[in-house]
């Protein structure tokens, strides 16, 4: 995903020095073994903590490997067959997709609104607004869930108290099958919107002011300037943010696990696919089965990313 050039280079950022000499590498003098020593430390870590578990996981998915016993035996495709017939896999995958569907639009739209509202603010109040919107993102997930569990508390919590003042009866947010996932989604929007906000803010500040000046001289009003300068120039950033956000939402686990005390909520209404991987692996102790589901999840992430890149690049071609 990083293959994108950085579209949010801020104007006040120190400019990287431009290369004055041709970038081509000359001669054999430069070719040396030194580079190998420089990449070695990272390569070792990469091999041990990424490649190894990736291969071990794939291998384990064809075995009955378990945390409960020492040795394991090859079982062929049985984990995979079991997985495709396991309703809990599909149910948790659905929870994950549903969460993604209800969190991506607000996380993009509110971030954009916040950036548009604040990018012309003066230094002092701009500082305050940036702080308010972004501070939650800096809080550890357990702090976020502690605060929100207390806010959702049915008898003494803030949310039901606020609802009562406008005459709406209280709701058991985290113990209701229909409300638990939306409640977690709301918490997530509050917690993480600040990140997308900063990306939008940087993109807005990267739009050169002379574009607006020229348009204004040509008699374009504020709305016209917004629709014909800001919106098209933010398209790339929006593509990137939507992509990042979808992948981030598909990785739901931490807050869902903590806000349901690891139970997955009533009837597993808030158990995402990673939650089921976690359960199969660490509660059920079945490493082989959990690895198979991990690979299914990996495939989902890749497919969604590729589809989206395709979709967006076609749109950009058409524009």
């Amino acid at each position, binding site marked *: 995903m990083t293959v994108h050039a*950085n579209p949010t280079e801020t104007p006040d*950022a120190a400019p990287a020095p431009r290369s004055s000499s041709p970038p081509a590498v000359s001669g054999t003098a430069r070719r040396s073994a030194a580079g190998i020593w420089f990449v070695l430390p990272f390569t070792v870590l990469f091999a041990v903590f990424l490649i190894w578990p990736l291969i071990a996981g794939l291998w384990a998915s064809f075995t009955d490997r378990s945390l409960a016993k020492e040795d394991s035996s090859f079982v062929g495709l049985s984990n995979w067959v079991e997985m495709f017939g396991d309703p809990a896999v599909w149910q948790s995958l659905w929870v994950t997709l549903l969460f993604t569907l209800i969190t991506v639009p607000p996380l993009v739209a509110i971030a954009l609104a916040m950036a548009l509202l604040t990018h012309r603010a003066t230094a002092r109040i701009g500082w305050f607004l940036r702080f308010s919107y972004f501070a939650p993102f800096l*809080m550890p997930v357990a702090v976020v869930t502690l605060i929100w569990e207390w806010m959702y508390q049915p*008898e003494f919590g803030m949310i039901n108290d606020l609802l009562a003042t406008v005459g709406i009866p209280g709701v058991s947010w985290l113990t209701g099958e229909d409300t638990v996932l939306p409640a977690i989604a709301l918490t997530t929007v509050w917690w993480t919107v600040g990140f997308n906000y900063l990306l939008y803010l940087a993109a807005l500040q990267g739009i050169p002011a002379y574009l607006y000046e020229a348009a204004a001289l040509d008699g374009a009003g504020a709305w016209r300037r917004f629709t014909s300068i800001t919106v098209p120039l933010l398209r790339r950033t929006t593509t990137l943010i939507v992509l990042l956000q979808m992948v981030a939402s598909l*990785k739901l686990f931490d807050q869902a696990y903590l806000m349901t005390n690891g139970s997955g909520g009533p009837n597993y209404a808030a158990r995402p696919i990673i939650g089921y991987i976690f359960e199969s692996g660490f509660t059920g102790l079945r490493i082989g089965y959990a690895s198979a589901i*991990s690979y299914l999840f990996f495939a989902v992430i890749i497919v969604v990313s590729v589809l989206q890149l395709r979709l967006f690049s076609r749109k950009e071609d058409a524009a």
Partner: protein
Amino acid sequence: MTSATLTIAERPGTPAGPASARPRRRFKVTPGGAAIAVLALFLAVVWLLPLVWAILTSLKPEPETTAVPVRWLPLEPTFEAYRTVIARGELMQWLMNSVIVSVMVTVLTLVTCVMAAYAFSKTEFWGRKWLFVLFIAGILVPPQVLIVPLFDEMTFLGLVDTYWGVALPQVVAPVMIFILKRFFDAIPRDYEEAARIDGAGHLRVLWNVVLPMSVPILAAVGIFTFVQAWNNFLWPFVATTDPALMTVPVGLGTVQSAYGILYAQQMAASVLGAVPLIVVFMLFQRQVVRGVTDAGLK
């Protein structure tokens, strides 16, 4: 803080450039500008409300938190909850662990990724191209996919319930190599060649030439890595069972039942757990913002 303190560039010809170069604008409050200011402040209040609620709760004596009807302001404000939480000691231990783990992850990430990025940018060696492609492909692997086999591996290596076991897998962030390499690529060859003619080896060139020119990107990568490590939950949660080794997110997440339904203490612990990074942000807002926007685009 009235709405008038927001300047909205309604007039054409607003000069661009850094704030210092901008003449102090006199602004009139237009209806559009006022609406924007009111909306922006409204959103800020909504976003701060949970924090205000948490802080107010933490200042109440315990029985007041569950009194009906709900009162927002504490009748008898007290720091009792904070005193109790601090006296229990475990939160301080978790904060210490978070500092240790996050510093380990940040230092190791900076050292290994800077060296690798330098090698990819400034040296030639056999296999350079395909190794780089392999690392870039590694960006696509979500860490969550590796959790189960990684735990199995860590058990085998004997690293479960150690700082190293928590920290090392978090160091593998190939995206940082990509970001650093892009920056190093833009440093003109003339500088390093001059140093090399003077007889400097690669380590000297990296240390004396490349790094001093890369301070902003190093800060960005370092800050972003630190924030991620500080707030990481899933892997530290899996890799630690001993409460004495837990980081703040894991400790507060697993032992939250230990505070029972003592809401004032829960909120005091939450406030204390949130404070370190928020203070860092208040002091270094510009650098944090830059770090997040530069390094966050992975």
